[in-house]
């Protein structure tokens, strides 16, 4: 439930809209009560209002109801859109090192299904709750004019339906909600695994197995849905009976006051939605927990409270850095010291597992050293903001992602204000310009999911061009030529030698081709960097 309060707290920017929705819905409720009471009184008891009042009330009821629906829904969707952005930002802050054990499909389920589950909170729960809170004293005063006994019976049944039953239902449905959110995510993951892995599925003839998996996950979801639907049905039935016995009590005790019968009926109809809403609130609470878990979990390397700006064109210095990925794993870096001068070209060599990529992760503040100090221009990395740092250090990793977008959009990620000429120059340096020129859509060609419409080598060179576009003073290239043939690799280094003048280049590789122009070469072994000759 705390997660739910946290989510509602996040709706502050949309508070004006949400409150406006609440006010209109109260006005619509008032007009309904007026219409019912007056038409009943007019028809049966001594008329309190004329036909004109009735028509006015009828018209205002219809108009207010329309705007109530419109404003409340608009307010809600604004709030949900805000939540989606909040979720993405929160995730980004915690996933600089990639998704890790988070499942992409599960995260998508959170963004879609769990955010949608929250719509019940405002529309079905908060709005009717506010109306019920206003309505209860009105009811008590009205019915007390007939008899205190009737007022207490109506008040009790109303409070039972509007407040007690929903609370009980929410408590009971919390665990069903947890099952349902988890099952929904598992179903989406199974579908995504099957579809993203269509090649593997076909190659291993796994069609039948994947169908069975999807069917099983679906059955789990339906089972949870069924329990939720059962609970909602029971809550509904209980609320219905409260309403029926409330109206019966009014019929028996206040038969002479016809308008009260209709007011009671309308009030109970409003309260009657609450227990069912309580059931969905349990579901929403489970969904809220899943959102908060991801978006507000611990940050691996938190920024300092008042960060220092990153100096430009600065030396990168590792001093006696110790690092291990997990407490039960052996250390990757064991007192490594390394000094990279501004504008220099440095190669860091070593077999896989020697800590080359760890070095990049440390330089980019994806992880923090266990001991020792990393500094840029003399400023400790711990005292700068990660986002600022990453504008000074560009990175091309082995896991660099190509987005299902156009070539242009992919390149602009490296430098959003780049002109077409800049883009072509980078493509030239990455030795892919001729290929792109040959595409009918050129820069606007769609590259497919993870660059699937291009070969592995072509995709790699696009990623390379994106890294070269960046204006950062320090360029970390982690195996830039993996997957490229030897000739392309040589051509690329020739272009790099010519184009990246004045920038610091840190080349991470398992071997050199001989085409690189380098100032220093280091070898990583047993957690130390050792200067090496060619």
């Amino acid at each position, binding site marked *: 439930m705390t997660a739910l309060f946290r989510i509602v707290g996040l709706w502050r920017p949309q508070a004006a809209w949400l409150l406006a929705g609440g006010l209109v819905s109260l006005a619509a409720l008032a007009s309904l009560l007026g219409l019912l009471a007056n038409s009943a009184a007019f*028809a049966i008891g001594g008329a309190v209002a004329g036909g004109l009042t009735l028509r006015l009330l009828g018209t205002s009821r219809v108009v207010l109801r329309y705007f109530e629906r419109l404003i409340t829904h608009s307010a809600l969707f604004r709030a949900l859109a805000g939540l989606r952005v909040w979720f993405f930002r929160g995730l980004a802050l915690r996933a600089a090192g990639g998704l890790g054990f988070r499942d992409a499909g599960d995260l*998508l389920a959170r963004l879609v299904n769990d955010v949608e589950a929250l719509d019940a909170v405002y529309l079905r729960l908060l709005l009717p709750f506010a109306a019920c809170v206003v309505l209860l004293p009105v009811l008590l005063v009205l019915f007390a004019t007939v008899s205190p006994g009737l007022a207490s019976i109506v008040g009790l049944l109303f409070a039972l339906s509007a407040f007690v039953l929903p609370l009980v239902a929410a408590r009971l449905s919390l665990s069903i909600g947890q099952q349902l959110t988890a099952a929904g995510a598992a179903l989406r993951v199974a579908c995504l695994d099957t579809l993203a892995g269509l090649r593997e599925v076909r190659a291993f003839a796994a069609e039948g197995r994947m169908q069975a998996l999807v069917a099983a996950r679906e059955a789990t979801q339906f089972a949870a849905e069924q329990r939720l639907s059962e609970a909602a049905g029971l809550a509904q039935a209980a609320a219905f009976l409260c309403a029926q016995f409330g109206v019966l009590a009014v019929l028996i005790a206040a038969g002479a006051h016809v308008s009260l019968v209709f007011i009671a009926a309308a009030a109970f109809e409003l309260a009657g939605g609450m227990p069912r809403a309580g059931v969905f609130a349990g579901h929403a609470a489970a969904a809220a927990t899943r959102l908060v878990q991801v978006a507000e979990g611990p940050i691996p390397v938190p920024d300092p409270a008042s960060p220092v700006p990153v100096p430009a064109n600065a030396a990168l210095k590792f001093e006696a850095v110790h690092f291990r990925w997990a407490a039960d794993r052996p250390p990757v870096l064991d007192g490594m010291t390394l000094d990279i001068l501004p504008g220099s070209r440095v190669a860091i060599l070593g077999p896989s597992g020697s800590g080359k990529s760890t070095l990049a992760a440390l330089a980019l503040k994806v992880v923090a050293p266990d001991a020792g100090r990393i500094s840029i221009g003399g400023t400790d990395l711990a005292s700068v903001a990660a986002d600022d740092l990453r504008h000074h250090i560009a990175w091309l990793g*082995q896991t660099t992602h190509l987005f299902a977008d156009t070539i*242009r959009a992919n390149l602009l990620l490296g430098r959003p204000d780049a002109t077409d000429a800049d883009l072509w120059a980078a493509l030239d340096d990455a030795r892919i310009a001729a290929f792109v020129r040959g595409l009918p859509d050129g820069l606007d060609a769609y590259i497919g999911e993870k660059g699937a419409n291009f*070969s*592995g080598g072509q995709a790699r060179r696009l990623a390379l061009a994106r890294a070269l576009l960046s204006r950062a003073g320090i360029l970390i290239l982690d195996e830039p030529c993996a997957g490229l043939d030897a000739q392309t690799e040589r051509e690329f280094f020739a272009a790099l030698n010519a184009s990246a003048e004045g920038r610091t280049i840190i080349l991470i590789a398992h071997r050199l081709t001989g085409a690189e122009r380098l100032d220093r070469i280091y070898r990583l072994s047993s957690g130390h960097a050792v200067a090496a000759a060619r």
Partner: protein
Amino acid sequence: MPQDQAWQNGFGQLNHLDMTESPNLTKSWLRGQQTASRRGVARVVWLSLVGTMAAIAQAFCAGALLAQGLAGQMPSFAIAAAFAALALLRAGLGLLAERRAFTVSTQARSRLRADALAKMLTQGPALLRAQHSAALANVLVDRVEALDGLFARWMPAAALAMAGPALVVLAALPVDPMAALILAGCGLLVPVGMALSGIGAAAASRRQFVALQRLQTRFLDRIRGIATIVLAGRTEQEAEALRTSADALRQHTMRVLRVAFLSSAVLDCAMALALVLLALRYAQGSASPNVASPGVALAMLLLAVEFFAPLRAFAAAYQDRMHAAIAAEQLAALPEIPPAGPALPVRNVTARGVTVTFEDVDLSWDATRGKALDGLSFRLPAGETLVLAGPSGAGKSSVLEILLGFIRPDRGSVRINGADIVDLVPAALSALIGWMGQRPVLFAGTIAENIRFARPEATEAEIAEAARAARLDSVTAGLPDGLDTRIGDGGHGLSGGQAQRVAIARAFLKNAPLLLLDEPTAHLDPATEAEVFDSLRRLMAGRTVILATHSAAAASFGGRRLDLRDGRAVTGRAA
């Protein structure tokens, strides 16, 4: 924002199904689906109709109680008890109807999802060329879920929208024909309003679905590459782009709702009109005195509420139907599964291995991009190895994808042991082939589970043996849980070389006679590459192998070599 526009352009082709589907196909498809659920829905309708009858009886009970109250008499216990009993009956009927509707809906959704998945699997990996996996998953998850409203709400509501009000009018007719007439007249306004609101609603609803699909595709793609975004310092730009997508979804949704709410407003109007007309009728004494008794008046007013209840459900479900019709478009547009022909036997597979021939094969992925393969011919005898060499984009992967059955050649023939590949059913083909791609897809789970994917019935010992043969045991020995170590979505926790070893282990476990290797060592350092090649060499023994690579070390495999350039064979010689 130019970036976003480019995205939309790029996305255009993802939605071609929306553009090409025919409305008639969708309609007849929807009709077929509804017929399949008709019996279940009928029960829901009957339960609800009995509930309406109980409500009518209650209205008269209430009228009688009120009349007694106004006359100053003690309320009759029997009538009050009847009212209470009817209330209990209605509560029970409501529960039963909800339960039935749920069953109908889950059965239908289950059937539809299985059907759509089977069709997607039949189309196979070629689907991924045109569509993002997130967009496909959206069809499989969200569009099927959107049909819930069709079965659980719309179908019962549509049947009850006529029958429920008709029952109420029938009950009112003998008591006060004029009141019955007023109700019926106001009720006729409802379909008029619905028709009005239906204009343009389909287009708005379709745009809403596209916006949702776009948002999902964008988000999934962005979180898969979240490290790339964060490390490029572009989190804020992407968050803003996501806000644009989310806002677009909100605007499209509101456009749909504005119309839907209009139909609700027409209903509110009709109900208010009915109440006002009835009130005026009884107040002005235009009815004959015996009709205008307060009890009758109250009963009629309560009946008005009951008259409109099914219509309100109908109006609410109208949106569900609209939604379902649009959701159905992509489901209906999935191509039917062709009837399975007799599986051609592949001759002498086990005895003599697999022979592969390409004869004058043309292939283009995309007409505008030229040919990926251009009149390619070669023959690979059983048990031999062919190294496909050439720069990236020369067509190496295309050769392998044809053999995998992911795509069909445009021209020419590809034969496996003499049988044309297009005549082989996918299962028969995949039984012959072991495959290692450039980027093996690893699923969240344990390493052992990922190996087992190649052959689910394999024993623990066989999996351990495959891991050993792939030299994966040296990796897992250093892990806390060995082969049962959990890895994340996409192979998180394993290095590139380790992931390739999992793929080799899969190939060992599958033990197929034809081995297709697509740059298996592209991302590995020389030492690791040598080890992987060592494992591969043992895997290749006795099999027919096609190895696409530009690694110099591949020369050590011996065998034939075919140099490709722009989809053509440049040289073919025995090394």
